[in-house]
């Protein structure tokens, strides 16, 4: 299968303390139509990895290593060249939809804004496209004039998804998109993301700390600990036959709804 994104030896460290390694030597590939999950605790560097692909890191952090999109190296692109890729080639959804949406602009206009960054459409076509996108994420057309505070958390996340797929990106990065949501809404959003990925043959990079979500949505899994990849592979292999001690320990922490499994918190010793 053809790789769509290739990350090679990605490293992130603070500019004023280069010896401190936040993300160290991370390499992985993304393929169209496949979902790759990054799992880890807070501070494991999973969000930093995602942000460095989008080149959205804080100016205090320095990233090195190569990132290639469809064979083209994008890691050296400057801040004026990168917006050409953001939204169009790769798009991102964040954890808390309310902080990502503008509270004083109607959701229809916000989706239009996302569209007009990359596409040159007239008013009629814009409206048509907004209606289509809303339908695609399961929201009725007449909600386009609503403001973010009039929507529920799940609906807001649907709007974020509509905005992210507006310019038909080939990579969708989702950073804990369901952590702030209820179980029932979470399962709806996961289903929506899976079906969109399938229909549009996008590559999805999904960040989570919940192995239940991983089982639901992933094709491939990357387990990160203290900035490093400790294990990666097919979802079935990693969940059923974890090789690394840390993966095993992390799986022990997840409560199970089917029977009483003994919880065991991670003993903090070095796994690497």
């Amino acid at each position, binding site marked *: 299968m053809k790789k769509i994104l290739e990350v090679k030896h990605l490293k992130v460290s603070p500019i004023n303390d280069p010896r401190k390694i936040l993300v160290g030597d991370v390499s992985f590939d993304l393929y169209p139509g496949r979902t790759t999950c990054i799992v880890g*605790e807070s501070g494991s560097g999973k969000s930093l990895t995602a942000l460095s692909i989008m080149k959205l890191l804080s100016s205090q952090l320095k990233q090195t290593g190569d990132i290639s999109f469809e064979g083209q190296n994008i890691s050296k692109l400057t801040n004026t060249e990168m917006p050409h890729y953001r939204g169009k080639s790769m798009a991102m959804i964040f954890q808390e939809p309310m902080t990502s949406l503008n509270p004083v602009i109607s959701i229809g206009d916000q989706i239009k804004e996302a569209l007009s960054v990359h596409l040159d459409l007239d008013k009629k076509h814009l409206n048509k496209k907004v209606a289509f996108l809303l339908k695609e994420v399961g929201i009725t057309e007449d909600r386009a004039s609503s403001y973010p505070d009039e929507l529920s958390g799940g609906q807001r996340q649907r709007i974020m998804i509509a905005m992210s797929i507006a310019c038909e990106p080939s990579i969708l990065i989702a950073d804990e998109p369901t952590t702030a949501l209820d179980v029932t809404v979470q399962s709806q959003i996961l289903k929506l993301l899976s079906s969109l990925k399938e229909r549009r043959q996008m590559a999805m990079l999904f960040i989570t700390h919940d192995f*239940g979500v991983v089982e639901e949505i992933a094709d491939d899994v990357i387990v990160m600990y203290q900035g490093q990849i400790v294990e990666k592979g097919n979802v079935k292999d990693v969940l059923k036959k974890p090789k690394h001690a840390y993966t095993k320990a992390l799986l022990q*922490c997840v*409560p*199970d*709804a089917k029977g009483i499994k003994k919880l065991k*918190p991670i003993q903090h010793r070095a796994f690497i």
Partner: protein
Amino acid sequence: MTSKNIKNEMLLEAKGLYKTYTQTSGFFVRKQRTIKALNNVSLSIKKGETLAIVGESGSGKSTLARCLLQLLSLDEGELFFKGKNLNTLKIEDKKHLKRHIQMVFQDPYASLNPRMKIGEILEEGLLIHGLGNKTSRDKKIRDMIKKVGLSVSDLTKYPHQFSGGQRQRIGIARALIVEPELVICDEPVSALDVSIQAQILLLLKDLQKELGLSYLFISHDLRVVRHMADHIVVMHQGKIVEQGSTKSIYEKPKANYTRELLNAIPGNHFKFKVS
């Protein structure tokens, strides 16, 4: 079920609770909408057991917690704590009883006063209820901070110096220091990471065993609930749709809504029929 023996085992009993909120909308033409946050809710908690309340957001679980704590007034209904009717108690007696019902909050970042040292946070409850003198209070605080897995040197620190999991431990210590019998935990682990979540759940279980506590455990994570609860109340739009033992709810759910909830758990392939 009204024999005296059974009643003595009950710690908290709620009978027919009602609570409605009114929402006003429209600027020129006022429209009023009433929301039934609690609609005929009855439940009971026995000593030493954990009752979990599950449901999605807006189902009334947190309103219920606040009403049980007497932070919100009820529209209708009766509350009995250890057989005493809370509605008819005098304010003085109520204050005394309130000591026995404490709460652990969801967000460990928002629920600790950033300007108070941990020692002061823990002492406050003891002072309010007038428990002990300076030396006995100090001893209690030291014992409690060790019990929740922190050290005595942490007492002089401020909340911002701790991680989320540590702050939740402080929240638990603050609730337990006045020796309550019932602790209401409102989504105590939903803001935490999986590994920290496991630590806190185990801590809560250990403390329950050691101190004979009863928990009212509010959560929307049905995996956590399975691990913690003895009995479960499923709420939907202010109403109880089903209640029973943990085993019966998970293995033979009766209500449609319960099945939907169980089917929605990620990664667990419950396949209950939803009509």
